[in-house]
């Protein structure tokens, strides 16, 4: 149910088709984090994938060597802001999973600093997700998840785990940190899967 709030007219009427419901366009780049920003150098940075059958690890240089792509995507934060047409650089997860075998359907993304978020593996493949380390032509700031973050632009942006450290595959869709604290298990911005 929705009704009019007396006297409210709002700002803009030419609503961009690319904006999901309940979102506002921003030019700057707000920050959503639950704690302090970790400080991780690219020298010490490692990325690992753990599955039921084993463990794979990449250093910063090994990750870059998998093949970097330029992508332009829209991002949508659960706190109601969106940025459209953002230029990113990163390694598609397809490259990473070329080297990984698993029968699991879900992954838990783990970050430096201890945060986790769950994502269906299907939604990380076929050009839908990257390990990203540049945005708008600059290396990612620590407050925005640098040196590297997961980028899953078709889901709310908390799924794009900052300070990404690895992925652990899992047979069931267990909730990560944000999901245990009230955010939706899946997070599709077009159907407003914000909170459970």
């Amino acid at each position, binding site marked *: 149910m929705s009704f009019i*709030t007396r006297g*409210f007219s709002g700002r803009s009427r030419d609503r961009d088709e690319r904006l999901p419901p*309940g979102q506002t366009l921003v030019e700057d780049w707000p*920050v959503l984090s639950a*704690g*302090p920003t970790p400080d991780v150098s690219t020298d010490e940075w490692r990325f690992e994938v753990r599955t039921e059958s084993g463990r794979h690890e990449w250093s910063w240089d090994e990750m870059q060597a998998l093949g970097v792509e330029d992508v332009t995507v829209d991002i949508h934060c659960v706190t109601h802001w969106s940025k459209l047409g953002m230029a990113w650089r990163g390694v598609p997860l397809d490259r990473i999973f070329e080297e990984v075998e698993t029968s699991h359907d879900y992954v838990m993304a783990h970050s430096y600093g201890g945060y986790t978020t769950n994502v269906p593996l299907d939604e990380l493949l076929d050009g839908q997700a990257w390990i990203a380390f540049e945005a708008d032509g600059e290396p990612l700031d620590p407050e925005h998840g640098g040196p590297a973050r997961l980028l899953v632009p078709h889901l709310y942006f908390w799924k794009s785990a900052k300070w990404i450290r690895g992925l652990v595959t899992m047979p069931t869709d267990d909730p990560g940190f944000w999901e245990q604290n*009230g955010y939706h298990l899946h997070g599709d911005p077009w159907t407003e899967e914000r909170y459970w």
Partner: protein
Amino acid sequence: MTRAAWHVATVAEVRDETPTARRLTLEVPTWPGNEAGAHLDLRLTAPDGYQATRSYSIASSGDGTRVVLAVAEVPEGEVSPFLVHDLRAGDQLEVHGPLGAYFVWRPGGAAAGAEASPLRPVQLIGAGSGVVPLVAMAAAHDEGADATPFRLLYSVRTPADVFFADELRAFAEAPAPTRLGLDLVYTRDAPAGAARPPGRLTPDLVAELAWPVEQRPRIFICGPTPFVEAVAGWLVAAGHAPEAIRTERFGGA
């Protein structure tokens, strides 16, 4: 945790909080209550169906159907100038919540999700309107006559910009052991007799005014994003465990 849902809210009372902020008391008959530190999403609808939604922290907590917000005007903003200048008693809007199960303080000594350890003190650090969820925590602490040692370090521009000034003063004058340790740091104008001249918060001042590392405080920081980034970074550099620090960033650059 209570499941969040949309609710119809009627404005029960509005009053000036500071020269640039308004306190809004909402009556939400279906409100399930909320924890201290939680927030909600507030949605406004225009006559042509256009909607705008923003998040606001809740200054109240507990079981009641009265929900208190305090909104600072962001110049040129879409929603906050409307809430600060145009909204009046009797108006209706929608709220979704309560939201957030992490940036909350639960009486009895345990932060959300943590094991009970009543002796760990709590340090609240806020700037500007970022004090709103911290006021809810300090109020819950005061009302519950909770003995967890509590301190609030509050950075504001001038004495007139202090949110919930009367309430904070009352918490700071409560009998021990419930008394709130209150430190106001004025960035632009300090009142006569203030502990120090006006100036921005520094790592040294935070170290001086916050519970020391050895006491392993639980820390809640809230305010504009650059403030939260800076202060959380100083505390980690000073030796506080990152897991002990919970943050809420309101936005802005």
